[in-house]
């Protein structure tokens, strides 16, 4: 496939350095384009497993089902932990009125637990989920490409 794309230094490393002076060309000159015959990145991906995935062979099916299951379990686990942490607060406040009336340096503990603490907790949960989910996906891609 013919494909035109702007030159960049990372591409230059693969097929001969381009003159770096090109960056400083006068603005009237059209920007130089480099033409490549095929996208080298496409070939890094293993053809075989990709086809298996795309054609839904039993093996390909099993691979993607595993990934879906792993991501779903991760989502449910993190969601459940957050729900239990937050969801136990109302019960605790009703069941133990003494707990609801505690104060920390003059501020009621309940207001800190409800007004401040949940937000870092939610952000942290999101950060953790993002990290693990991306790790799952990277592992999957590595497995397909090798």
């Amino acid at each position, binding site marked *: 496939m013919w*494909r035109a*794309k702007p030159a960049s230094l990372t591409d230059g490393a693969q097929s001969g350095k381009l003159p770096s002076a090109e960056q400083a060309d006068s603005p009237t000159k059209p920007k130089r384009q480099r033409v490549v015959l095929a996208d080298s*990145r496409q070939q890094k*991906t293993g053809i075989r497993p*990709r086809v298996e*995935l*795309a054609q*839904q062979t039993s093996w390909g*099916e099993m691979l*993607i089902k595993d*990934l*879906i299951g792993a*991501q*779903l379990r991760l*989502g*449910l686990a*993190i*969601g459940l932990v*957050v*729900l239990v942490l*937050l*969801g136990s*607060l*109302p*019960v605790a*406040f*009703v069941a133990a*009125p003494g707990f*609801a*009336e505690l104060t920390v340096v003059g501020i*009621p503990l*309940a*207001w800190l637990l*409800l*007004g*401040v603490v*949940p*937000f*870092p907790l*939610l*952000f942290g*949960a*999101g*950060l953790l*989920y*993002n990290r693990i*989910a*991306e790790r799952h*996906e*990277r592992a*999957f*891609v590595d497995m*397909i490409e090798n």
Partner: protein
Amino acid sequence: MELNAWALVAVGVVGAATFYLGQHSSRMANSTHDFLLARRAVRSQRNAAAISGEYLSAASFLGIAGVVLKDGADALWYPIGFAAGFLALMLFVAAPLRRSGAYTLPDFMEGRLAASRRIRGFASFVVVLIGVLYLVPQLQGAGLAFATVLPAPVWVGATVVALVVMVNVVAGGMRSITVVQAFQYWLKLFAISLPAFVLGAVFVSGSAGPHSGGLDAQAPPVFPERTTVEIETPVMLQVDEATLLHADGTVNGAPAEGEVFWSSEVSHEVDAGTTLRFDAGTPVPSVEGSVPDNASWLVPGSDGAGGLVGTYSLMIALFLGTMGLPHILVRFYTNPDGKAARRTTVHVLLLLGLFYLFPTMLGALSRLYVPELLVTGETDAAVLLLPSAMLPGVAGQVLAAVIFAGAFAAFLAACSGLVFSVAGVVATDLLPGSVRDFRVASVITAVIPLVLAVVLRPTDLSLSIGLAFALAASTFCPLLVLGIWWRGLTARGALLGMLAGGGLVLIAFGLTLAAGYTGGSVPVLVQRPALVSVPVAFLVMIIASKATQRAVPPGVGALMLGMHAPDPLGFVQDREIPRFGRAEERLRFSKRRHEER
């Protein structure tokens, strides 16, 4: 209310900046695809700011402080739920939905379930319903805010906001909206944090003038000085102890003039146009059903098991409802791929968490300094009135104007997002789908809620927003979650589940609305139906799908692969590109997707 000239300047500045940003970037948008999807090259940080900007509506900016003023610690679940909704969205929806290539829920239904035109039409109807339910309180909030700060009747604010939104959406489309929304997030954060810091400092330094008594007292707040309250909408008031006051107008159905004695045994009905005058030190009466004394206001869970059910129901609605809001979903489609969609959501959690620290604080301060709002029931005006009550003179007025500018930005952002997304659905599903149809649709979707907002009785912002969330949680949440994670979902099953869940919420909504007019009260599960309606929707959807298992679309394996395979493998389906894009644009998209890793 006397004219606050600073507020006029603030509205002018926000309106002009919005308009300028919208115009400036709309010059570049020319094809339908550009117009609707902002070339899908919006960076994840700016996109996160835009999502947050769009999400922080009147309910967040004014409503939270209002319910905190009225209900105290139990109201703190609103901001928690508003933020937690994005965690649920991230865990179960963000990346797969982005990869599915659907950017509206009807699109998702058609793509995932091979739904017929009629079922798709039903989904569009629910989108419009949620949009309207969400827009009406926004516009009513705008009316209240304008009437609080400027000498203007209530319909003026709603009309001004609807007009600005219409012009902006019609002129610019999504890219200009992205810039505008991102700008408005930062504006809102500034407008709520500056007053919170200044007023907090004033409070701590003790130079804020008389207030209504300790927040942990076993008694209701008291008026710090002689206060006159004008009742503009009829209210039922309760007092905690026998109270002496001056009334001029109609009380309990009979004309009253002069001193009135209220007992704590019964509620007192005050008609519109009545003026009540309280001497300094009089306990503040409060609207029937709210928390009367400060001690139970300060402590969560003070209304026992009934309150517990209400709290959990609210949590479910907010936690699962966010993913079904049309204006939030359409914005996720502007991410280049599934991974970026997830990263955007992490940013959103950070930005929202930062914002929600402040309304709570302002709500607590307003219990001390503007207790008279408990009498009129217009608690949503709390943040707007607080600065002048705490800081007399120019400083207070300037702060009030800053808050008003933020509130105005909140109305604009939420309304333009909603009008944009609902109009998108109307234009593609009910009209042929050109840019011109989109413009017609956006005018329609702005005018209908405007009419409703002026005609209908204003209820508390957070309550009515809560219903919109409950509706989204009982219809689109099960559709999305089951559609993304379970192969067995069928179109028929999805339809029945949405009918069951949505029907329950609408019945509950009708009962609450009727009770509001007749003065009766409804059980907590009718006010907050999500605890029942969401499980019912899930169950019906699963059972009905099992019963129609033969109707599972044949290509479901490929669809699941497209939604869940990591982005670099290139299985992402962009259904809109073959429809709208040109060949070289498609090439550019696919390249950008790889480069952004």
